[in-house]
């Protein structure tokens, strides 16, 4: 008997060989997610964007955040970020249209992220207010390594893509073919492996800066 069959038979035996009705299992599984709102952690603020920012900048996530009115202001925001830290205007830019279409004059751009890249700029598909997380999908315009190699990671996220809870992300993508890789990123890379004390910049970025564009009901 193949390992697969041995295991499946052993499970059936262990469970008492009861018959399984897929529809009933499905209903039961769905029921287990009923009434979720009553068992979720509270959001930090009333407004979605405020709640998101409060979480992103809370000590638990320890990232920084700012708001801009429209994406066209992003290059200026990046400029300010670099200047404040005395960094050169050499950035890796994610090859995604919302970023590539902006006016980056004054910057030296490239789209391959080097292993010791100082700063990379990316765009997240969603923000999550519950946890202050950013969601990335791998794809033609999203190299996954770009989120992990740079020391500084600057991420743009549109206010109207900020979702209240992690479950809302699951709901928003239910039924779609998943990308190879979904990354839910919450703050900079960290480790507590030496005596439990948190140190940022373990293998991934040491600094995460989130730029929120527009308002929840604007399309910009």
């Amino acid at each position, binding site marked *: 008997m*193949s*390992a697969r069959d041995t*295991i*499946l038979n*052993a*499970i*059936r*035996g*262990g*469970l008492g060989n009861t018959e*399984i009705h897929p529809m009933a*299992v499905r209903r039961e*599984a769905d029921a*287990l*997610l009923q009434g*979720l709102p*009553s*068992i*979720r*952690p*509270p959001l930090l603020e009333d407004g979605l964007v405020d709640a998101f920012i409060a979480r992103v900048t809370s000590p*638990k996530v320890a990232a920084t955040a700012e708001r801009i009115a429209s994406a066209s202001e992003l290059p200026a925001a990046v400029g300010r970020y670099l200047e404040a830290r005395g960094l050169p205007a050499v950035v890796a830019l994610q090859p995604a249209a919302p970023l590539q279409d902006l006016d980056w004059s004054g910057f030296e751009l490239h789209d391959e992220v080097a*292993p010791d890249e100082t700063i990379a700029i990316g765009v997240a598909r969603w923000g999550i207010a*519950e*946890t202050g*997380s950013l969601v990335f999908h*791998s*794809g*033609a315009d999203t*190299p*996954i*390594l770009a989120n*992990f190699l740079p020391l500084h990671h600057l991420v743009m996220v549109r206010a109207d893509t900020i979702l209240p809870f*992690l*479950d809302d992300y*699951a709901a928003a*993508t*239910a039924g779609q*073919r*998943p*990308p*190879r*890789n*979904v*990354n*839910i990123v*919450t703050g900079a*890379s*960290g*480790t*507590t*492996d*030496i*005596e*439990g*004390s948190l140190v940022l*910049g*373990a*293998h*991934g970025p040491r600094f995460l800066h989130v730029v929120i564009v527009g308002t929840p009901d604007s399309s910009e």
Partner: protein
Amino acid sequence: MQEATLSFKARAKEALADPTLKIAIDRTTGTAERKRAVAMTQFPQFEAARERGKRIKDHVIANLDHYLLEFERNAIASGAKVHWARTAEEASQIVVRLCKEAGAKRVTRVKSMLGEEIGLPHALDEAGIERVETDLAEHIVQLGGDRPSHIVWPSMHRTREQVSEMFKRLHRAPHQEETIEAMVDSARRELRDKFLTADVSISGANFLLADTGATCTVTNEGNAELTTTPPRVHIVTAGIEKLVPSMGHAIAMLRLLVRSATGADVTQYTTFHCGPKQTGDRDGPEEFHIVLVDNGRTRMLREGMKDMLRCIRCGACMNHCVVFRQLGGHVYGGTYPGPMGAVLTPMFDGLEQSRDLPHACTMNGKCQEVCPVAIPLPTLLRGWRDRSWREGLEPTAVRFGLGIHTFVASRPRLYRLGTAIAVRVMRLFNRGGLVKGMPGLGAWTAYREFPAPAKRTFMEMYKDQEKGQ
């Protein structure tokens, strides 16, 4: 995998005599305990979430064959290759074979307790494949040539001073400054090029999502992506109990897992992998393999340990265990330490050689209280004691003693007499309110005083009082 041949008690004695170990344990588990407590106050519905989590896992276990097949179907549809392994050996052989087929010289590994369980590090080393542990703690374990001592912080047994010494000795460009930040930097430098030049990456999974065939992994360091993205082949090993119906269920479980493990709300990186590189993708592996491992899990199902299959490997039980906090993880001798390890190790390694583990517990119930999926760990441990008793593995002296005790205690008059005599004997050794030098009390009096009994038993005095009335 067995720690040398020392007995549990001998290993415990060594651990108790090691003050550095105790410092290291307290620093890590103490922080974890405090942070978890804060996280609980910030999530008032945690109890309800815990009940939900328990039900989700129970539901999956009750329909495990159904979910495994659904997962397999969807994983294959996403382009993954699914393998099944009955035993640890079978699992690690599959992984080694896949590495060889990929012509792998160097593999990078993301920490996975299942990998430890199936002896993967050893199997890779044996096969002559260079193994790079990318999780900082596993890196420390690898440098130190020892084994993980905690399921969340594998290098918990090392103080920062020890880590610093090791890095200085073994890193190519070690840190200069004596800070934890500088040490982390040193590891970052040391590992960076290895991430990018490996041929195969191996990771575990915290959850397997049945409805998409995706696997879910949580890390804080970001090493999972750096590890699993560049190589041509990515292999995931996972226990068959890791299934959840969908991402929504995984999220409900994640809320429990992370808070219980580290006190954070989510890990820095929550990652879902689904199949190999897709058309148009900028990066990612060309081959994606999933090895589903039984290794005793179906036996647990059969042998009354179903509850243990809920375990999500958060480590809260050990962080809150008074015994673990004195001994650390190595003493347990198996892959998994602490209360959950004491339940699992007799399963993996046999009861006869690990019968101490279920006994070395005060049954205080704290582990069950903090377990995010409400596993009745003390009950399971007592289950092992029961079995050990029935299989005749318990020492004769204990069997004899308890037999006599029961004989006497089920005969009240004999019992009264026995107690009265015992009290009088103890009184013979009374020195100022403490029993001193009485044979048979050495285990107690080696470490603490034994308070002397009163001159007569309660029952004797009570009867006299009644008569007097």
